[in-house]
C-alpha cells in the first residue's frame, strides 16, 4: 500500500479546470517532489490530499483512507506545513503547541519534545508575533509533527525564508526522512527537490507531464532545472 494514492483526480473552479485527471503514487518513507510553474495546480492538489478541498472526480487515499469518506482518519495521519504557519501570533510558542496538542489529543509532554526538536526551548514563552519567519516555520514543523503523522505535506514551505532559515529547515526535514517519514512537497526550488527528494512529478496546466525518479527526470539533460524548463515548455522563452 502506498502512503498517498491519487487516481484520475479532477478539480474545477467555475469554468477553470485546475486538475485534469492527476494520477500518481507516493511510496511509504520516500520524499516526493511536486514540481510545476505557478498555476499548475500543485497547491490545489496538496489541499485535496490534506482534506481541505474536495476533488470533483477521482479517488485520493492517504495511508489507505479515502480523503472524502474518512477525512477524520486522514487528518490524524497527516501533518501540513505551508508558507502559512497556522500559528496564533498573540499566543506564545508553547501555548500554540499546547492548543494543537489538545486538539489532537496528544500528551502534553510531546510539546516539550517538539520544542526541543526545533530548537525553540529558549523562546517558548515569547509570543509568536516576535518570531522571525524562520522561527515561525520551525514552530510550524513542530505543530505539524505533534501527533507523529505518517505523512508530511509541504506546500512551498521555504517561501520567504532566508538562506540560513532554509538550511535549518532542510536539516530538520533530512532528520525526519532519516526517521522514516513520508514527504510530499511542492516547490519552485530545484535545488530543494534535488537535496531532499528521490522521486517527483512535473505538473503543468493541471496534468502530470512527467513522473519518475529525479535522475530519470533529468535524463540526459545537464540539470533538473533544464529538464523542468523543457518539460513545462518554459525553456523556449529563455
Amino acid at each position: 500500500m502506498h502512503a498517498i494514492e491519487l487516481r484520475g483526480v479532477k478539480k474545477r473552479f467555475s469554468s477553470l479546470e485546475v486538475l485534469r485527471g492527476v494520477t500518481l503514487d507516493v511510496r511509504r518513507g520516500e520524499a516526493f517532489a511536486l514540481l510545476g510553474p505557478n498555476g499548475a495546480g500543485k497547491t490545489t492538489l496538496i489541499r485535496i490530499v490534506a482534506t481541505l478541498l474536495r476533488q470533483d472526480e477521482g479517488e485520493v487515499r492517504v495511508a489507505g483512507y479515502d480523503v472524502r469518506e474518512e477525512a477524520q482518519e486522514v487528518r490524524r495521519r497527516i501533518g501540513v506545513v505551508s508558507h502559512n504557519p497556522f500559528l496564533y501570533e498573540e499566543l506564545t510558542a508553547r501555548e500554540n503547541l499546547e492548543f494543537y496538542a489538545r486538539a489532537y489529543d496528544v500528551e502534553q509532554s510531546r510539546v516539550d519534545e517538539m520544542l526541543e526538536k526545533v530548537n525553540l526551548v529558549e523562546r517558548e514563552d515569547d509570543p509568536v508575533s516576535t518570531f522571525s519567519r524562520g522561527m515561525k516555520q520551525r514552530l510550524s514543523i513542530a505543530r505539524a509533527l505533534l501527533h507523529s503523522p505518517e505523512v508530511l505535506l509541504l506546500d512551498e514551505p521555504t517561501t520567504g525564508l532566508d538562506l540560513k532559515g532554509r538550511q535549518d529547515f532542510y536539516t530538520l526535514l533530512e532528520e525526519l526522512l532519516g526517521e522514516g517519514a513520508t514527504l510530499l512537497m511542492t516547490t519552485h526550488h530545484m535545488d530543494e527537490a534535488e537535496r531532499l527528494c528521490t522521486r517527483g512529478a512535473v505538473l503543468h496546466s493541471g496534468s502530470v507531464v512527467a513522473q519518475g525518479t529525479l535522475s530519470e527526470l533529468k535524463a540526459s539533460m545537464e540539470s533538473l532545472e533544464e529538464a523542468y524548463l523543457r518539460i513545462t515548455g518554459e525553456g523556449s522563452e529563455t
Partner: protein
Amino acid sequence: MRRHTCASQVREVRLKAVLNLASKDIRAELRTKHTINFMLLFSGLAVIFFSRIAGNYVASAPEMGAGLLWLVFLFTGMLGLGRAFVKEKELGTLDGLKLTPMSSEEILAGKAIYNLALMLGIQSIIFPLFIIFFDFPIQGSIVLAFGVLTLGNLSFVIVSSALSTLVLNARARELLLPVILLPVLFPVIVTSVSALNRVLVGGEGFLNILGEIKIILAYAVVMSVIAALTFDFALEE
C-alpha cells in the same frame, strides 16, 4: 466530507476539544483586547446616545426600554461576533483548525462559547449602565431580567456564530452578515423583549414568563441542530 446522523453528531462532540478552542480564543482576546474593547466602547456609546435621545420617552413609556437595550446588544453583537471566524480566516489559521481531528460541530461549539463569553462580558457592564443612564424604574427581579437577557444572547451567539461562516468567503462579508442575521433573529428578539418587559416593567416572576423562556430555549435548540447539520458545508470552500 463528514456525514453523520443528527444523533451521532451530538454524541461525537468532545467537551474537552470544545473548551480547548474556546479557552484559546479567550486567552488570545484577553491578550490583545481588540474585539472586546471596540464592542464595549460601541455599546457604551450607544447607551449614552440612546439615553440622551430617547431617555424622556422611556421615562413616560418604560416598555420602550427593553427594545432599546436589545438594539444595543444586537448592534454590538453584529460588530464583534462575526470576528471569531473572520479573524481565523484572515490569519490563515482556519485551515490549521480544519486540519485537526476536531469535528465541525466542536469548532462551532467552541466559537459559540467564546462569543457567549464576549456577550456576557458586555451584558454584565452594559445592563447596569443602561439602568443607571435611563434611570430605569425596575419593578421585577433584576436577576431574572439578567437571566432572560443571557438566554436571548445565547440564541443570538448560536445563530451569529453559525451564519458568520456562511459569509466567510463573500467579498462584503461585514455588510452581508447583518442582512442575513436580522430576519433570522427576529423571533427570538421579539420574544426576549416581551419577556424582559414583563419582568422589568410589569414586575412579573419566572412562572409568568415561562412561555417566553420555553420559546427562546426551543429556538436555541432548533438553531443549534440546524447549525450542526449545515456547518460542515459552510466551512468548506
